[in-house]
């Protein structure tokens, strides 16, 4: 259980990291906290020629507070969000979900950017960040581009990274005062990858109503206008207006064929809605 021998680089800034990525004669792998990559390296599932450690790059740990959104670097850890060292703008959604990721010892090193780029469909960040409408910014030889977080995952373990690109930051919108959110993941034991994830955001002030079905073994199913599933957000009890039939249909339409899988995911969404938090 030892990785193959690799070269190691610790670039000082994003520009230097991109320069290292540009060498396409080598198998170059970026590492942040290494909590997904570490096990894969130890098991020799991944055998890079060069490991680029970006955890020391200051820009990737910066937080910028803007009037209607917050931007944080790719190397912000789960624990940074759980402990609110990064200010929460989501009425508790992100800290609460962070608290349930793996184990504390993993959360102290694992990063949001690393989790998104590893693109495991059962991971937490891809689902909750899709629910709150977050975006990711990627930087490469052609400059920056910003896309919706759900579009960043192409499929199981495949992120939308063009040659020489890396993820640099995540942008999370500030939720309205009456926004409600919910998140539920179905796991047989704590800390394991989820079998089904349901998440929603209802933010009537901003006119946002989103539903996410995650842990689908591929990219999450994101309903960007979910009024037909959870109403306009003004109902006192969202679980009373939740249409589980329509949710099952939306999941089937997205290609989930197995009826038991569908049912598990509908239940995860219903539980997310039953636990609606308004903070």
């Amino acid at each position: 259980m030892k990785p193959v021998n690799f070269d190691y680089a610790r670039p000082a800034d994003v520009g230097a990291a991109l320069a290292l990525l540009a060498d396409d004669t080598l198998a170059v792998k970026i590492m942040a906290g290494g909590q997904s990559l570490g096990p894969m390296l130890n098991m020799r599932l991944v055998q890079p020629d060069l490991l680029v450690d970006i955890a020391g790059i200051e820009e990737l740990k910066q937080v910028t507070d803007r009037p209607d959104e917050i931007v944080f670097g790719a190397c912000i850890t789960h624990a940074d969000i759980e402990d609110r060292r990064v200010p929460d703008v989501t009425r508790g959604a992100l800290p609460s979900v962070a608290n349930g990721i793996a184990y504390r010892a993993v959360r102290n090193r694992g990063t949001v950017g690393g989790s998104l780029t590893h693109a495991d469909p059962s991971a937490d960040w891809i689902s909750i960040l899709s629910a709150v409408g977050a975006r990711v910014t990627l930087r490469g030889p052609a400059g920056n581009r910003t896309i919706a977080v759900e579009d960043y995952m192409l499929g199981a373990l495949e992120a939308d990274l063009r040659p020489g690109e890396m993820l640099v930051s995540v942008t999370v919108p500030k939720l309205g005062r009456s926004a409600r959110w919910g998140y539920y993941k179905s796991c047989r034991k704590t800390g394991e990858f989820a079998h089904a994830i349901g998440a929603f955001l209802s933010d009537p002030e901003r006119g946002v109503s989103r539903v996410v079905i995650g842990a689908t073994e591929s990219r999450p199913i994101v309903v960007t206008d979910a009024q037909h599933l959870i109403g306009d957000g003004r109902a006192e009890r969202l679980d009373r207006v939740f249409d589980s039939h329509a949710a099952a249909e939306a999941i089937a339409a997205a290609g989930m064929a197995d009826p038991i899988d569908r049912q598990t995911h509908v239940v995860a969404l219903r539980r997310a809605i039953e636990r609606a938090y308004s903070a």
Partner: protein
Amino acid sequence: MNTVTLKVNGKPASADIEARMHLADFLRDTQNLTGTHIGCEHGVCGACTILVDGVPTRSCITFAVACEQAEVTTVEGLDADEVATELRAAFSKEHGLQCGYCTPGMIVSARDVVLRMQEPTEHEIRVAMSGNLCRCTGYVGIVRAIQGVIAARRARGIAAIPGGDHRKALGPAGSGHATASANGTATRIRTSPAAPALAAATPAKAAAAPRQEADWKPQTTFTESFVVGHPVDEVWAFFDRIGEVASCLPGASLAGEPVDGHVEGQIRIKVGPISAEFQGVADVSRDEATRTGTINGSGKDKRSNSATRGLIGYAVKPGDKPGETRVDVSIGYTLTGVLAQFGRSGLVQDVAGRLIAAFVKNLEAKLSHQSGGGDAEAPPVITELDAGSLVSSVILGRIKRFFAALFGRR
């Protein structure tokens, strides 16, 4: 080799190590600090949990070189620590250990729970400690020990500090202490002489022929169907040409033509950063009467030391429209070794679904090419399954239009 210097239990500790050495090996092998135990070595069991910059960290999936100049505390460094002292007494009193293998990690994680959680319920303690496995005690004594220490401390008026009191910096624990090199470019450490080319590896001698074990049953089975716009006779005949069938499967190639229904070959699969190359053998059989066939194969990936056995059945029948053929495929497989430890069945299915989608496109292209009068060796259009095949609709649409234009088909 390069010199890595950490601050271990308050003292500078350095060693010349390879970049691939994880923190637990650094402590055990170069500092003789064998109190840090290694269990699973992939971040699951928690035995190797130590403090890095004051917070619990898995030392088996944290490289020493990535923690240059960080502050590391092992169980040996907790002798005088107030909470750890109380926990040691409580673990003894409550039978919180038997063999002791998990105990160093347990003490580090338990200390974190005592420091961070004000009045946790038993359930909350169990959840917080669930990343540390113990095979002796059944956890009852461990949980009681932690409850006891928390109750005593709160009774003495010592409150918890949510988030702990150590960490102020952002980013992965252990990162950000090393100074960048003077010119602001990368600090790069070469540890390996030019890696021996993988290409030098000779094709592995095939695994044992699968035909002996008739009663073998696959662990996982799923089915897929697809329709091709060509007559049944053409498709059925095509499936008899094993070499051509293999060339439609992205990443697959044969070592030679089949002899007596027995064939050797390989398939390369790439999923995200993982790539595997299975070398193996297969027995192929066909039944003309029912137009069904089976491919019974097994293979090994030397890199990941994983093995697979698979049984693929296919049935070729007329499609709903004239001139169309429906192919039903059932895929059963058993995966063992490292890849099996990592792969969940749904992920395998996602990859298989993508492989088949690419196979169908290649098959269509090949059949069209042949019926259009081209030679049998038209190059397959998708040669490797990777991110590219996921952005499929756009690219495949283009390929389809290209062939349509070429052969006047719609």
